[in-house]
């Protein structure tokens, strides 16, 4: 073990140590609570902390283990989740003011799965209002701050998930990703985030941003931790008819395949929605070189027309969000942050035919992507965020606004949102630090339902690098 502070251990180390009774769930939970006591005032990751409830739950997990019952591979592990996963009878704000006192009528399927696996719930985490925003700003609950530099953004919309895992306050957290909202905070906070294939993880009982593009997934400190968590979360759910009935692979058992002989395409799009920063490009190139030294065959690939993919996604998001938010937008428009409300308004004006065509185009986009960019490669490597992590002030659309700020904010999702349109899996892994000391994330993209390949590559990369082991101080 690397450290006396249990909070700095990895999820899989903690879970295994609890299972082997070398430590208790109570000890792990107390370590997280101590860490939260230090970091919460700095980063504002938690919206609600359930200290006593979590300790009681940890005691119950320890008692079960003492009686010979281990619920699963996450037994006794403390986590917290983006405040958009419903737990019956409990407040679930969705990061909004509108739902600040609203209590959920059902429990999200993913929370039921984590409960069944023995996870201890420390509380619920900050997020962009109604999961709409790529930076981590929140005018209602306070901005979430990056643990590496509290003047900088966390990425969003799963801001608290990225910040809490990055600051080692929790061992894992649920996020959600409609245009990059798992991968962006993972990249900005120096952790691992998986947006699995559309249909791999149930969305039932989660606040929707766009039913067609929403993906539920885990943020963790390492690829191994992420694989363990996704294996619990994934699978068919009768409560979400879009989930796949395909069996869930044993992701963790497949991690050690190595990358020798694998074909990995490298894409460094210089002319994307935001210009690629030189130091971000260099970090991703260095990651490709590292994988090459491990035996992977690296080649350059061309990405599809991101403009069509990006704008099709915008059409879907705006139309679906406008439809679901209309009653509140009419009755209490002032209850929304301006940038959250205005981003949805175009949805009232887009013709239904355009929306339907955006949906009809997806199959064509996927076929083209697989036949071109993915042809002959096992995965594609590209940056997650094309520029160094900006400050909260630089990206404050509510206070500052203006075309330059809006352009920078839109640029966050330039390399992530297209993969929501495609529905293919995408994994963000730390690959360096910029000149400001903020993390840089690489993105691995794969074929439908090939999360195991992305984990295998990411795990091999983490075996050769130590970016994931660095901890903010």
């Amino acid at each position, binding site marked *: 073990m690397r450290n006396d502070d249990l909070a700095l251990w990895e999820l899989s180390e903690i879970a295994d140590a609890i299972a082997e009774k070398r430590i208790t769930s109570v000890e792990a939970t107390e370590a997280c609570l101590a860490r939260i006591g230090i970091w919460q005032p700095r980063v504002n990751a938690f919206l609600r902390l359930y200290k006593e409830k979590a300790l009681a739950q940890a005691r119950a997990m320890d008692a079960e283990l003492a009686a010979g019952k281990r619920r699963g591979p996450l037994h006794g592990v403390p986590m917290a989740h983006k405040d958009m996963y419903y737990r019956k009878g409990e407040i679930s704000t969705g990061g909004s003011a509108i739902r600040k006192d609203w209590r959920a009528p059902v429990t999200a399927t993913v929370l039921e799965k984590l409960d069944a696996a023995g996870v201890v719930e420390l509380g619920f985490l900050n997020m962009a209002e109604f999961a709409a925003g790529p930076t981590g700003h929140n005018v209602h609950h306070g901005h979430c701050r990056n643990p590496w530099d509290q003047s900088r953004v966390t990425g969003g919309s799963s801001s608290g998930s990225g910040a809490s895992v990055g600051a080692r306050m929790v061992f894992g957290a649920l996020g959600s990703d409609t245009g990059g909202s798992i991968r962006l905070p993972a990249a900005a906070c120096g952790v691992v985030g998986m947006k699995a*294939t*559309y*249909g791999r993880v149930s969305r039932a009982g989660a606040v929707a941003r766009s039913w067609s593009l929403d993906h539920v997934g885990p943020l963790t400190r390492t690829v191994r931790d992420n694989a363990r968590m996704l294996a619990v979360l994934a699978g068919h759910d009768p409560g979400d008819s*879009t989930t*796949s009935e*395909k*069996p869930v*692979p044993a992701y963790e058992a497949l991690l050690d395949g190595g990358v020798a002989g694998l074909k990995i395409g490298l894409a460094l799009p210089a002319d994307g929605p935001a210009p690629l920063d030189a130091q971000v490009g260099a970090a991703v190139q260095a990651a490709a070189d590292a994988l090459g030294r491990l035996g992977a065959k690296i080649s350059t690939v061309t990405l599809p027309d991101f*403009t*069509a993919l990006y*704008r*099709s996604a*915008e*059409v879907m998001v*705006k139309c679906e969000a406008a439809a679901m938010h209309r009653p509140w937008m*009419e009755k209490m428009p002032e209850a929304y942050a301006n940038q959250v409300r205005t981003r949805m*308004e*175009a949805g*009232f*004006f*887009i*013709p239904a035919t*355009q929306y*339907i*065509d*955006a*949906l*009809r*185009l*997806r*199959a*064509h986009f*996927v*076929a083209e992507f*697989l036949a071109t960019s993915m042809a002959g490669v096992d995965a594609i490597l590209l940056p997650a965020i094309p520029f160094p992590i900006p400050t909260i002030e630089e990206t404050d659309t509510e206070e500052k606004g203006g075309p330059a700020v809006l352009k920078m904010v839109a640029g966050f999702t330039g390399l992530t949102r297209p993969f929501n349109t495609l*529905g293919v899996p995408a994994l963000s892994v730390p690959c360096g630090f910029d000149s400001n000391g903020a993390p840089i994330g690489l993105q691995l993209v*794969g*074929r*439908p*339902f*090939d*999360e*195991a*390949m992305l984990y295998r590559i990411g795990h091999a990369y983490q075996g050769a690098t130590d970016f994931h082991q660095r901890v903010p101080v």
Partner: protein
Amino acid sequence: MDEKTKTAAGIAAGLQGLEYDGRRLAEIAAEVEVLNDAVRRAAEARLAFDDDPAAFASIMAKEARS
């Protein structure tokens, strides 16, 4: 007010029962134009009569590698 903004005003007041000022309608009209054009161009190049939104789920299942 240009023609596109007038169209947006007509949709807002006449079809959706929503109220926006002229400046906001002009912004929305410009935003919608960009999005519509992108989808229309992509659709013209790809879509045929039989294209079904559910084909997305089908191709994801068909192309699955696991």
